[in-house]
């Protein structure tokens, strides 16, 4: 198996997470830390269902819904209890740690040998022989693209326009006689649903649920969104959602490059430097001009 397949697989799985972070961070302008909890939440739900022998394809919608529920909770804490955005995410993230632990029963649930969306008769039948090594990648790619297209389509609906409006100008939404609080809750629900969906796929690809898998998920998500949107800002034919998916793959490529070329201890620093280089390349020229003028 080529290392490229691994990068693309991981990149696309985290790309789905990045799509969720894109909604909260870029569209809603809401720094949502729930992600560190809702990512393993999706994984916990998936592992529990798979161990119980439920049809693995059911894990996809169920994870999305459970994640969305977590997002709704964050939204309610923020909108109804008037807690600051950052703090509502932190509260939810902390609560989800216990919920995940309780849901899964223990901190580490292996699902080797169980049926998953990647390992079942149908998929083994479709992907046989030489083709088998691309199985996971193709399935992940299909799910990521479907998520992206559905999100793009949603953004064009009335509700999608309202979502974008809330991030840009809350008053506009109020003047349209819409409750901006509800729109925010909806946005958080969709975002965390996508994040939990990424957790669901991640768990089945890794064949294990591990409670610590969510730690730092928000950082990867944010990095992917920023790499994607700033690197491809001039390519107008590329939709932001596509850019985010590519951004996530680039992030994983950075990690792979750091793993390849440096001592294990230096890995995080090299990843950080690569990340910085990409950001500088993608930086807008305008700011510099302003400074000189």
């Amino acid at each position: 198996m080529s290392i490229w397949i691994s990068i693309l697989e991981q990149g696309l799985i985290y790309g789905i997470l990045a799509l969720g972070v894109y909604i909260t961070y870029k569209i809603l302008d809401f720094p949502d830390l729930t992600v560190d909890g809702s990512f393993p939440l999706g994984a916990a739900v998936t592992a529990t269902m798979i161990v119980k022998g439920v049809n693995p394809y059911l894990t996809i919608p169920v994870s999305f819904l459970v994640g969305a529920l977590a997002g709704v909770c964050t939204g309610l804490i923020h909108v109804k209890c008037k807690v600051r955005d950052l703090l509502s995410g932190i509260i939810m993230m902390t609560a989800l740690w216990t919920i995940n632990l309780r849901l899964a029963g223990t901190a580490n649930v292996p699902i080797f040998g169980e049926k998953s969306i990647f390992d079942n008769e149908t998929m083994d039948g479709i992907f046989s022989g030489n083709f088998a090594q691309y199985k996971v990648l193709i399935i992940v790619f299909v799910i990521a693209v479907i998520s992206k297209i559905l999100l793009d389509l949603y953004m064009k609906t009335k509700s999608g326009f309202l979502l974008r409006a809330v991030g840009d100008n809350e008053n506009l939404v109020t003047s349209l006689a819409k409750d901006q609080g509800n729109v925010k809750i909806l946005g958080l629900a969709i975002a965390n649903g996508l994040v939990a969906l990424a957790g669901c796929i991640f768990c089945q690809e890794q064949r294990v649920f591990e409670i610590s898998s969510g730690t730092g998920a928000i950082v990867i998500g944010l990095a992917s969104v920023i790499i994607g949107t700033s690197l491809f800002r001039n390519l107008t034919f590329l939709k932001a959602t596509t850019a985010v998916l590519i951004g996530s793959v680039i992030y994983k490529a950075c990690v792979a490059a750091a793993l390849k070329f440096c001592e294990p201890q230096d890995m995080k620093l090299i990843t950080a430097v690569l990340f910085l280089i990409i950001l500088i390349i993608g930086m807008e020229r305008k700011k510099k001009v302003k400074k000189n003028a």
Partner: protein
Amino acid sequence: MKRKIAAVLLSTMMVIGMTAGCGSKEEGGTSGEEQYTIGISQFAEHGSLDNCREGFIQGLKEEGLEEGKNLKIEYKNAAADQSTAKQITDSFVSNKADLICGIATPAAQAAYNSAMNAGIPVIYTAVTDPKLAKLAKDDGTPVGEVTGTSDELPIKEQLELIRRMLPDAKKVGILYTTSEVNSISAIETYEELAGDYNLEIVTKGISQTADISLATDELLGEVDCLTNLTDNTVVNSLATILNKANEKKIPVFGSEIEQVKLGCIAAEGLDYIELGKQTGKMAAQVLKGEKKASEMKYETISEPGLYINTKAAENLGVAVDEALKGEAVEVFAEISK
């Protein structure tokens, strides 16, 4: 425009670099001898795990597989990130390593996950419960081409030791991280066996390093002594715990040699270097083709060793009789910093 060129350059560099890296499977093996490449994936930077790795390499060497001669070792560390662990072992698989070694449970699981369809054998170490981790079946036989060693604690011996050194103790405190499966299974065994020694186990669960200080204070108020597991979060904060325990004159028992060096009064525990050596020998058998990984049951360390720190015992006024000292594998008369 410059920016775009730079972007293109950077990505090209990365592409070339990685492709070149992939293609560079060892050209060595000039001597007629067989050349082996192995990948070691360690989950986190951690004293015990480092010892495992060192022991593993020593064990291979004792079996005639020496780095630089007929063995190429690629070592990577996942910095405690599960998805990085998978990327590491995926890269070993794509480089067509002859064997992958996973150190600690998540790294072992990731290694088996990457290698299961590529037919590359996996040897693990420092996995406390391979059955729970689904790396071994209930009878101890492997689930596939994967086997190794478990760092299961000698809990019975440890309880005996506590009884012997502290005849009046009633309550033994254990600090553990709720997210570490290994700790939870160890505590179950402790609670099962404690009654036989007239001891009661008091546990405090934490979820992160930041909770250690508070939890230790609380626990110290309730118990006569503490005993450590191999819990990563707790062991990494051992200095804090020892400090607080010493202030209250409460002895702390360790679970392996390094902890005793740091000031735990004694441990009936593991020597991770030995564990690693044992693992290395298993790996050598698989590499040489003497046995298949799927034919070997996982192993635990043959004999637990007793380690005593007389300085720490003296500070706490705990008597260490000569007989006990005689049984010890190693007695430390100093607390290392």
